[in-house]
């Protein structure tokens, strides 16, 4: 009997196992295509933009509202205690502030003098809200509510709280997906700020349960790098702008090859409580390696 025609012979239907087989082939083809090209990113972006993102924006706002309200009542009593402590602190800070204002004035002058305005405080930035997080529990990717319509582009860097969060890896008209530096499959080319030694920072799900991520390939023969040193994005990275704070070194071990060192560092950003991020709208300039053929 022909499996495609069912018993009555009048109604057209395909048995489940053939469908399964066909869809498996389609899926594997799609996996291969998306691994090798970025043919579908535009299509997928448009589909997602129409069906899902508008709802996510609304629900995310509602979700944060409900949570805010719940925390509002829980925090009432702690706030009173805190208030007393804070009043004391305000007095201390006033005094400190006066002193720092003087320092700041001096610093500004010195910066002008050394033309240090290339620091990342001078990059043009735009704020964005996180509207969705990874549905699985394996990677720490998320979606923000701005996309190509707001002038964003793939590979733009994301910062929050003064530290590096990640970069945009796929984008649609009103949304973009951010891959964070703590994701297990992401490596960031970085350097130690005070010695200038390059190292590779790699996200690690296993060690992130203790709040740290790993680094490797640090060449430091004279033991100049120590625990607590700042790690920033390196000059030679082709995705990240130089000098953005990634984290602080928490442990260093010599590798078994006795040439390089590896260890762990604490990220500068609190990824658990990330709500709003800044997108740096200038991108790192890279030399196009493809030379024109004719």
């Amino acid at each position, binding site marked *: 009997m022909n499996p495609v025609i069912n018993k009555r012979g009048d109604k057209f239907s395909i048995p*489940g196992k053939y*469908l*399964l087989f066909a*869809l*498996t082939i*389609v*899926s*594997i083809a*799609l*996996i291969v295509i*998306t*691994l090798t090209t970025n043919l*579908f990113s535009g299509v*997928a972006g448009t*589909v*997602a933009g129409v*069906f*899902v993102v508008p*709802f*996510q924006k609304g*629900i*995310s706002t*509602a*979700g*944060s509202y*409900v*949570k805010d309200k719940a925390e509002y009542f829980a925090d009432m009593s702690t706030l009173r205690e805190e208030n007393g402590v804070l009043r004391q602190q305000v007095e201390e800070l006033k005094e400190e502030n006066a002193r720092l204002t003087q320092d700041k004035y001096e610093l500004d002058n010195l910066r002008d003098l050394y033309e240090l305005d290339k620091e990342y405080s001078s990059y043009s930035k735009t704020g964005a809200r996180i*509207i*969705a*997080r*990874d*549905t*699985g*529990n*394996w*990677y720490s*990717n998320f*979606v923000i509510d701005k996309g190509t319509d707001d002038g964003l582009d793939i590979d733009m860097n994301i910062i929050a709280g003064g530290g590096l969060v990640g970069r945009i*890896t796929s984008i649609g008209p009103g949304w973009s*997906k951010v891959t964070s530096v703590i994701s*297990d*499959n992401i490596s960031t080319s970085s350097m130690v700020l005070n010695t200038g030694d390059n190292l590779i920072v790699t996200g690690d*799900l*296993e060690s992130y*349960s203790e709040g740290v991520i790993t680094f490797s390939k640090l060449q430091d023969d004279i033991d100049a790098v120590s625990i607590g040193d700042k790690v920033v994005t390196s000059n030679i990275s082709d995705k990240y702008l130089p000098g953005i704070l990634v984290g602080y070194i928490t442990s260093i071990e010599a590798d078994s090859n006795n040439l390089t060192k590896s260890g762990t560092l604490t990220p500068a950003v609190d990824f*658990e409580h990330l709500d709003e991020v800044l997108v740096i709208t200038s991108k790192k300039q890279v030399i196009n390696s493809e030379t024109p053929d004719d």
Partner: protein
Amino acid sequence: MRKTLVTFVLIIICFIFQSSVFSYFSFGGIVPNLLIIITASTAMMRGEKAGLFTGFFAGLLADIFFGDFICIYAIIYMYEGYICGFFHRVFFPDNYILPLALISISDFISGFIYYILMFLLRARFDMGHYMTHVIIPELIYTSVVAVFVYPIILFVNTKMDMIVSKGARKFV
């Protein structure tokens, strides 16, 4: 046709809730897997073919947004829906134990397969750590959430069946 549309809407609602609302109620960074719940329960109520499609589209949605390449979740969820669909023959709306057990097992297996494909193959060998920190917590959280979500899906489904059969009778 209307059934398909309702399932489609349910998938989108589940996805939106999972990605936006539940991230505010995550325990230790773990969110429950609503897409598994909708896939397994639809498969059980409607048979393997419906399960296959539900799984495929639920996975595809997750892939488009959060996957590095499209179709890895789609393929896992599709097989899950297909296999859960075999239990359609022993499915009774009054029996809650079988669907909930099946949802839990599906979640565990999908987590394990994903670990093998995406982590073990990248030489992350510490299986025990990933078990205790990701797969098992997700399994527990999903099972607990399923106790509340499954009756809602069942209710929508039986209501839909009633509407469709009523329409058919009127037509005759």
